[in-house]
């Protein structure tokens, strides 16, 4: 198992919490809300890239939207290795609720 930094852990949990609707802005809002202080976009990109490289999250591309000037949204989701071993654990549910 690869070690995660504190930031990576927070981002990983945020992606897990967002359940398939994780992209830059939503992740930022999520962690900002959960941790109580404002995260910048730049601050989440590095952990996101590292998590992708470590294989815990994978990205996919949404259909291009007009709102984004025809550019597609990059969505992140957990991979099999990134998923919690036993989602039924109470501590798991508890933390999911908190985040």
């Amino acid at each position, binding site marked *: 198992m690869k070690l995660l930094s504190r930031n990576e852990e927070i981002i990983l949990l945020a992606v897990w919490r967002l359940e398939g609707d994780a992209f830059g802005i939503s992740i930022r809002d999520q962690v900002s809300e959960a941790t109580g202080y404002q995260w910048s976009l730049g*601050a989440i*990109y590095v952990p996101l890239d590292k998590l992708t490289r470590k294989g815990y999250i994978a990205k996919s591309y949404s259909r291009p939207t007009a709102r984004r000037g025809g550019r597609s949204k990059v969505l992140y989701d957990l991979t099999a290795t990134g998923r919690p071993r036993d989602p039924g654990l109470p501590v798991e549910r508890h933390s999911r609720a908190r985040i």
Partner: protein
Amino acid sequence: MIAARIPPGPPGVIRRLIRFFLRHEDAGGREAEFEEIFAEEARAQGFNSARRAYWIQFVLSLPGLIMNFIMWEAAMLKNYLTIAWRNILKNKGISFINVAGLALGIACSLLIFLWVDGEMRTDKSQPRGDRIYRLERGNWVHLPTSYRKAFENFSEIEKFVQFDAWETPILRAGDKLFDSMKLVFADDTVFVVFDFTFLRGNPRQAMTDPYSLVLAQSEAQRLFGSEDPMGKTVVFNNAFPFTVSGVVEDPHDFHIEWRALAPFKSLPMFTGRPGFLDERNDNYSTYLLLQPHANVVSLTAKLTAAINTTRRGEAPALFQLRPFRDVYFNREMYSEKGVRHGNMSLVILFSAAAVLILLIACVNFINLVTARSSSRAKEISIRKAAGAVRKNLLVQFLGETSLTVLAALILALVLVAAFLPSFANLTGKPLDVDWTEGKWIGSILLVFLFTALASGLGPALYLSSLEPVALMKGRSLRPASRAPFRTILTVFQFAAATFLIAGALVVLGQVDYLKAKGLGYDQEQLLLVPLKGELTEKPQVLSARLKDGKTFGEAKSVFKRRLLQNPDVRGVTFIGQSPGELTSTNTWTVRGEKRPMIIMNADPDVLDVLGLKLVDGRTLSWDMASDMGLSYVVNEEAVPFLGLNPLFGETFRANFGPSRVVGIVKNFHFRSLHRKIGPMAIVWFDAWTSTAVIKVSGTNIAGAIAHVRKVWSEVNPQAPFSYTFMDETVGKLYAAEIRLARILKVFVILAVFLSCLGLFGLSAYVAGQKTKEIGIRKVLGARTSKIVILLSKDFSKWVLLANLFAWPAAYYITEKWLQGFAYRIRLGIGPFLLASGFALLVALATVSFQSVKAATANPVDAIRHE
């Protein structure tokens, strides 16, 4: 209004900055996220607030963005490095030649510049150097002490110092005997006018005691080893004890060569003549320290007037003040005791050689890199197809060449460090370098930037301008012969090589001429034995002897008689300075007019032993007591110069009283061939002879030397025996030129080698480009020889064009160098033709290696298209 309908976007500058930092496969998506923040804020709070939020978002994101940037750039850099490394491995040979060639060129030119720097620094470190001037009378440097009174009358002259340079025959420190050293007598103001770094002692008190002695550091080490030299005694000529009162750092960059300084006022004691300083001896080089902002022109005029009034009965002379820092490179003066000179034309020649070698090496590197870059067309087209833009390719190519150049640079510095001692040996000069000095760092950086940019920029710009599709299809690039940049480089390179070859040929020719030119006296089978110990004068006898000067030293006459008992010893004569380096001068008064004469002190046998030819009159005589010090044999040059009438009858005043000329000797080169033969005279004053010249039989030199050694140990058991051969001593006069010839040879070989490397790479490239053309020509019936000519024609044209530039430059510089010799070869077209021929030959040989390979290849392989 129309403008209101267009929704204002986020600030352009920030947007561009974000775009710059977002090096990512998802850069577009991420940029959009920034814009989304702007859009949301704009919807909620209006554009001003949105702009602020966008700003804030950028500033907060900056650390992350930079991290991101580094992460992604590093990935690309890793790719560049991998490709660069693979390229090096793919062509191991050429890569090695490339790096080693550049390193060699850089190392070589660095070494030369170290030497040039040392030459240029001579005399520059004196802090008051810009205020110090040497007083000269016409072309005469040595002046009498009587001018001192005049100096004291001028407020412009702050201090002055006079020097008298001696070569002491033998000295004793503790109970050990040592060979001669350069001893210079100077006024105690020497440490006020000049600046020497005292390691021991105090500049203000070091020279106050008349028997004090200030040693150079290395001399103190030679005499006393690791002991503390302060307060120790050094005895000169077994008679004159001096006490060490100071030790200074070796004066490397000072044009007066000295190993020890002694006070001027001890000269009477040292010479055994109490009134020595009051005598009219034009013996002392004179340096004046002027007040700041003194008017040199008006001072010269005033000094000339003042001194001329004191020189009663002499024709008025012209005086000049030569800036101290100009002395080192000025070689026009008649005779300068103990002064070391630089050679400006040599410095220019060397600098030119260094720059040329450096440029050749750089050009080579550039040529090889650019020639090889075309083989990477496919790689580049793939990179372009994958989205690389011009900037990426530039970064890649520049990075790659920078790395190679850096490797070469490091190798060069290692080479310099390794060869520094042997190069110092070759130039005969210690070199000390402070690499941290700005000029070294600056010039190394300059070389680095020039080479890296020139070799990286060209191919990057050219290759990135091509259509990737065309490149991938394998369509050939422009042929090299039409690439003007590379042609210019090659022409330049060959011009430089031809220049160096021609220069070396001229120098070698002149050195051969110097070696071969008869000097008018024998140099073969002559031993020079410096007289020491018993064979020098005892102090108590000396002062008595100096008064009458008549008798021949007892020990010397025994020595001479015993030597001649062996049939292998053909002749013995005692002389003062050795012929070839005469500097002693004496001022004669002929009919009330002063005549400076170079004096050779030698006993009457000198004409026989040295093989000098008597033209008229008689030689000096053993029998006539009056010949000692009073009769002179002059050379042919001196006859019109003196204007005596009748020549052998009229008396004139010389060193030892009323004197006469008794004979004329045929002109001979008593100084190096740099200088014209001037008037000189031979006199015998036995007390001042210091060297035995022994002519030995050519068939048994070893036996003769053994005999001399045996006699020496019997007559003079305490003093160490040493000898040199006359031809060695004479050879030393041309040491600088012989050294130059040796160094130039190395340079030329290097330059030609480097040029060939460049040409080799280039011809390989051209042959590769024309593979198809050659194949088709061969199929259509062209002969191999025709194809070789076809491929070589271009290069020959360039090499010939190179001569156009090389010849005038080489002519100019070598002619300037030759002007430093009074006796020199005439500069004909020979060396230039030879240089061009050689360059052409080497070029053709290099090129034809490739063209023959291309021409003999199977045409089927060349035109087959898979």
